[in-house]
């Protein structure tokens, strides 16, 4: 007891003496991030961390950032989030679909802390928001390029898990490839992992062996591009989540497999939400930004893509950014041939958020 009092008074003394200039300002707002993979994955988690760093840059000393990498989706996640809540975080971002239940469970116990869950749909408590990005807008652009660039008319998509986010991407990718090239055939492979470079490389290899020459990935590492690079220019791919610019050119100076990329840019959202906590205007919401909000960005389209295709892709980007065009605009049928969207009809967010069907023309079934 005595010791504690002593320490406390010492601390008070220190605060008075040394920290006087800083007194004008309140405690920094603490923003915490839970990552599913390592920051060094060069993809998904890397981009979330970039967003976190942007928050730091925006607010400087007024904000304190804490994060935890490679948190498994499961019981561990709940433990990590609880620990963060106890450590004085004001807002906690949980950046993977699999953290959904853990986030809501912890949020129930800490009503004063704000929780933001990425790519989920559960908001069981008033202090839980969800946020997502309309990746399918970016996939539309990649699909267009894929359709134009394929020589074998077989394009591939490495899925992580059969969840709506992936299925939106697959459908959008296919629809726009098909528009660009009616003969195109889509091969989907599920890796059942977000991050396992060896397995992702194997998945790319399996598709290449079967004649696929354009590969899009929905997993987190750069391995599929690495595998494509071994084919000496015959196979191309896209940067996923992050720009993956290292694959633009090979070591020998020849053009590399990466011809474009879909970049997740979380910075605007993170700055907005942390800012809202600071000025007390944070409210529960379900955010779903895309190209107009600057959350989905297409990285540099390289010289490997013919100028006319590049121009078409850029036009597509411009139209989606202005809101003029929605990637899911009818007429679109479901895989079984039943009508989904009538001519000119646009998909509503509810259907998209729970998307569990392929569009017409995709072969294979969605595993469950």
């Amino acid at each position, binding site marked *: 007891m005595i010791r504690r009092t002593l320490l406390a008074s010492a601390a008070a003394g220190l605060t008075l003496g040394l920290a006087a200039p800083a007194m004008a300002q309140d405690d920094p707002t603490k923003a915490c991030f839970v990552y599913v993979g390592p920051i060094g994955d060069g993809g998904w988690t890397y981009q979330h961390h970039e967003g976190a760093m942007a928050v730091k840059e925006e607010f400087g000393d007024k904000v304190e950032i804490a994060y935890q990498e490679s948190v498994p989706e499961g019981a561990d996640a709940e433990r990590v989030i609880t620990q963060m809540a106890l450590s004085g975080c004001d807002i906690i971002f949980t950046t993977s679909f699999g953290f959904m239940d853990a986030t809501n469970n912890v949020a129930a116990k800490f009503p004063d802390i704000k929780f933001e869950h990425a790519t989920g749909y559960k908001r069981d408590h008033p202090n839980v928001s969800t946020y997502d990005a309309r990746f399918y807008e970016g996939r539309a652009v990649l699909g267009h390029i894929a359709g134009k660039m394929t020589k074998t008319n077989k394009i591939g998509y490495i899925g992580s898990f059969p969840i709506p986010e992936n299925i939106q991407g697959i459908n959008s990718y296919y629809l726009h490839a098909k528009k660009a090239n009616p003969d195109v055939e889509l091969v989907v492979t599920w890796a059942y992992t977000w991050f396992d470079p060896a397995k992702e490389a194997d998945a790319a290899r399996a598709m290449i062996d079967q004649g696929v020459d354009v590969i899009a990935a929905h997993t987190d590492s*750069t391995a599929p591009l690495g595998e494509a690079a*071994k084919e000496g220019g015959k196979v191309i791919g896209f940067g996923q989540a992050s720009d993956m610019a290292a694959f633009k050119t090979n070591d020998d100076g020849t053009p590399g497999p990466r011809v474009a990329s879909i970049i997740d840019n979380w910075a605007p959202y993170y700055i907005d939400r942390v800012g809202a906590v600071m000025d007390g205007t944070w409210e529960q919401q379900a955010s779903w930004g895309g190209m107009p909000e600057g959350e989905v960005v297409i990285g540099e389209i390289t010289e490997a893509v013919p100028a006319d295709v590049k121009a078409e892709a850029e036009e597509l980007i411009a139209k989606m950014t202005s809101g003029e065009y929605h990637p899911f605009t009818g007429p679109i049928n479901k895989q079984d041939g039943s009508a989904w969207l009538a001519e000119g009809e646009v998909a509503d967010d509810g259907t998209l958020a729970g998307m569990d069907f392929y569009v017409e023309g995709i072969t294979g079934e*969605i595993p469950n």
Partner: protein
Amino acid sequence: MDLSSISPVLLIASLMISATPILLAAIGEMVVEKSGVLNLGVEGMMITGAVVGFVAAINSGSPGLGFVAAALAGAALSLSFALLTQVLLSNQVATGLGLTLAGLGLSSLIGKPYEGMKAASLPKLDIPLLGDLPVVGRMLFSHDIMVYFSLLLVLAVWAFLKYTRAGLILRAVGESAESAHALGYKVVQVRVAAIMFGGACAGLGGAYLSLVRVPQWTEGMTAGAGWIALAIVVFASWRAGRVLIGAYLFGGISVLQLNLQAAGMTWGVQYLSMSPYLVTILVLVFISSNRSRMSHDAPANLGQTFHATR
């Protein structure tokens, strides 16, 4: 579904590449376990090998040097395990798990500046005559040197354990350290040597991932391959030939299920992915169902610490 689009030739070719990292790690771990030591740190040694090999290959421009550095790094890390378990007599299970954690952390520290870089990969060997054979040439004789090295290593380990005096001593140490000690063999020295061999093999396996299979460094890139290697040793009931079969089976099934998916099959791929693990469990149940068979397969002193009291 169009199964005809799967080419058996390419399937087997990619299976061999896919299985090589776990084969290397598993054959090393088998020798370690044969000497009576259970090193659960395979994952940590693999990923350390992966990062050190990658860094060495980038800085020297030679993937060959990368592999050498990876083997040394794996061995060096395993030496810390040897020191703790053989000299300071710590618990092998706990120390092995600690080694994995340490390896994962160390590798991400070393690898930080090398993220997103690309290293020169091993060239595919151009074997005259054999490589030109139809079908078989593409399937078996168009790989890089490490694939053949791993196969030779399995053969060498098998011959070493079966035919050499040193191999017999190593097995004796694993079966009964007390007896081997009584006969005047240096139990701790033998075990330390085995542990370092296992570390070097795991390092090579990791480097194969970062230099050939994925060719790049990403944090956590082994993603559990070390644990699969451990499972294979049990699956193989501590025999070199079966380690080869086990590794190719694990690698083969993972490649096969992806190929089946790419060919349009969606039913049952999850079951196929889980089948190697199920088989391992079945093998475990099988070998432990009968006491005499169990004592026949597993090294009798596996996981026990040895302290020479006399």
